[in-house]
């Protein structure tokens, strides 16, 4: 069963897998997490703003994104972004968007919906007295949010945000449907070139498993450490 298991195939592919594949995956994960968190926080603030139209728009966006499969969203943005770019730049034809930019936009837009729900819960978990006290001190809305509410919401939700980032890390493997060389895409290209599906896919699984396991262990440690004693 493992008689013709060829470790050398993996060893030879290592530089390609990590320098190209894993770099793409990790960069995409990090940038999408920051972008998604920023946009998601904005969406959460819109939903909680008390302005009906703003709240409605943000709510619809979040619900729409959360009811669609990521694969479909990836296809949507892959074809839509060139047209949006054309519209924005007034170009004569749909502009060319690279694989990385296209997937980054997709993941920011998609993950923002999930991050926004986490941030909404985080903001709502803060007691009324906090913004009331901030207002009494004469802080404006944006000051209240920036200096009082959001820092606490981030802190309370940090473990959940990080867990969502681990999910995001795993989800980036779906850019495979656009034949992009992320970590899994790179592994799959080597697998098909050398006819070594077993070795490459088992190795890819092991790497994803190790990284996610270590990361979730770290999150659990962090959760225990930063828990605010009330």
């Amino acid at each position: 069963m493992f008689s013709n298991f060829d470790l050398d195939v993996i060893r030879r592919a290592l530089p390609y897998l990590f320098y190209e594949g894993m770099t793409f995956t990790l960069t995409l994960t990090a940038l999408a997490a920051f972008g998604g968190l920023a946009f998601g926080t904005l969406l959460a603030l819109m939903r909680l703003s008390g302005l009906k139209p703003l709240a409605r728009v943000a709510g619809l966006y979040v619900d729409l994104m959360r009811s669609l499969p990521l694969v479909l969203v990836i296809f949507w943005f892959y074809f839509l972004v060139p047209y949006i770019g054309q519209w924005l730049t007034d170009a004569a034809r749909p502009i060319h968007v690279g694989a990385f930019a296209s997937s980054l936009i997709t993941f920011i837009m998609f993950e923002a919906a999930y991050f926004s729900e986490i941030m909404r819960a985080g903001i709502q978990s803060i007691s009324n007295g906090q913004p009331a006290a901030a207002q009494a001190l004469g802080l404006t809305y944006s000051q209240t949010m920036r200096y009082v509410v959001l820092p606490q919401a981030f802190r309370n939700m940090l473990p959940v945000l990080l867990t969502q980032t681990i999910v995001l890390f795993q989800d980036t493997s779906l850019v495979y449907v656009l034949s992009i060389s992320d970590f899994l895409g790179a592994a799959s290209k080597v697998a098909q070139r050398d006819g070594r599906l077993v070795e490459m896919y088992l190795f890819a699984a092991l790497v994803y498993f190790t990284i996610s396991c270590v990361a979730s262990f770290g999150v659990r440690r962090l959760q225990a450490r930063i828990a605010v004693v009330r």
Partner: protein
Amino acid sequence: MSYHWNWHIFFEPDPTGSTTYLDLLLQGLLLTIETALCAWVIALVFGSIIGVLRTLPSKTASWIGFCYVEFFRNMPLLVQLFLWFFVLPELLPPAAGLWLKQLPHASFYTAAIGVGLFMSARVAEQLRAGIGSLPRGQKQAATALGLTTAQAYAYVLLPMAFRIILPPLTSEFLSTIKNTSVAITIGLVELTGQARSMQEFSFQVFEAFTAATLLYLLLNLVVVTGMRLLERAVAIPGYIAGR
């Protein structure tokens, strides 16, 4: 925009000429539903077993449950599907591997089992949380009545826990439906797959994806409405959800 909209595309014949694009999308929807239902049954069965294992007093049982959940949670679904689809047949004895490879509808079975097991880890976690949220007195009262552990779970703990976790189970079911689209990578032509092939044959990208989007939204709506009714029917009297 220089895009040429053509909403009549749905009623035009597909490349084989035997049916319309709309028909193909509906076939895709049907396959999505079938795959999701099979996967959901697997997820519920395995998720319940593992969820119970994790709450048993036995250290070994809860350790087995922990390993199972970590195994399925820490690998991307796509990688898991590849393992089932490409790697498993090679690791089995040659005869069994060949049988697996020649199985008709292999991508359907792989998707149902792969997505089912992936989701079972999440169902297990929900159920564990549900059982954990019950007051300790429930288990103690069951023991005091002379129920065995199995009876306590069957008659007291599980009927309560499942009703409590019904809302999160709804979102897990919705995730199951969405996750079936990952099986496009192993050749399952479900709703997303049909929309994708319609786009390739007809070049009407946005019509195809709009239709798929609307069908997914419709499916979501049906599931959410159905689960609301179920929640109301089985709500526990005396809890906030009940009356």
